């Protein structure tokens, strides 16, 4: 069964984020062909019109390129992949910091907490 989507964000955006993360994890390689619109639709239980829109925004952001008659491919441009990696990092940190501040933690506590956590994790 397919993974569920959040109801507060358009599915085409959530699907694009999933593909970005798969590229970061190395499950999709630079230059690799993305599955066809219909295949992706069947894998994630999403309307082909929506998948089409996902592929369009991936192309607009440079992450993917469509080659006439061949399909859609992950970009091989290292600069684009680096900036995507940077963007996702900032987004994750921003949402983590928002949650922490919401619970009343100060910037220094958060910074210290992360540092401590990473050091402990390194030791184990």
């Amino acid at each position, binding site marked *: 069964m397919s993974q569920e*989507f959040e109801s507060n*964000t*358009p599915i085409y955006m959530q699907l694009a984020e999933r593909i970005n993360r798969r590229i970061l994890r190395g499950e999709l390689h630079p230059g690799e062909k993305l599955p066809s619109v219909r295949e992706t*639709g069947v894998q994630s239980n*999403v*309307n082909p*019109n929506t998948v089409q829109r996902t592929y369009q925004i991936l192309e607009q952001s440079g992450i993917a390129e469509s080659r006439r008659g061949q399909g859609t491919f992950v970009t091989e441009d290292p600069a684009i992949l680096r900036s995507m990696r940077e963007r996702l990092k900032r987004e994750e940190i921003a949402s983590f910091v928002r949650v922490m501040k919401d619970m009343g933690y100060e910037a220094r506590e958060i910074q210290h907490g992360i540092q401590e956590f990473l050091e402990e994790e390194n030791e184990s």
Partner: protein
Amino acid sequence: MIELQGVTKRYHGKKALDSVDLTLEPGKIVGLVGENGSGKSTTLKLIAGLNHPTRGRVTVNGHKATRRIADRVAYLSELDDYYPFFTVGGMIDFHASQFPDFDTKKADEMLSFMNLERSSKVKTLSKGNRGRLKIVLTLSRNVPVLLMDEPLSGLDPMVRDSIVKSLISFIDIENQIVLITTHEIKEIEGILDDVIAIKDGHIIGHHNVEDLRFEHGKGIVEWMTEVYQ
């Protein structure tokens, strides 16, 4: 294109639909949602030409929806009616003999997608497999309009998942209008382009599902809960 203009339908003096205006364009999968008795099935039957409006006009690609509209419209009934003496293959061939637009090759592809055997007797099929067979018979027709009344109702999660996947695989999304009534919103949400909410015979909302998420930050269930109050 499907058009309802000022459509009212009464059954025994009670209004099932009340002055409904609705236009649906090809290239979309549309969900029709609402409580039992809200007018969902009536809407589908009027478009299928199986019922006639008391007032107003129902057309499919400019043609009035009468019994003869069946050559442009495929209709999946919510009833579990079938001919028990047929085999699966017999059902396919019977439908092919009734509808010139029936695509037997596509039907056979769908049978293997659904793990159904041509030689199985319909009466020995599980409820889930009968549900799958109904989908095969409906989607194998090359018609501009597909109407499905509760295609997931009463089926287990595995069957519902295979039906959702078969819709994605086999609908000719560029050329067809697909109108689905359902209570299983969570499962079908990802494949809907538009959603229409109907209550007491009135259309109370009609949205693009992705716009609903983008502009209002809501999924269909949250939106329905709001408009239904």
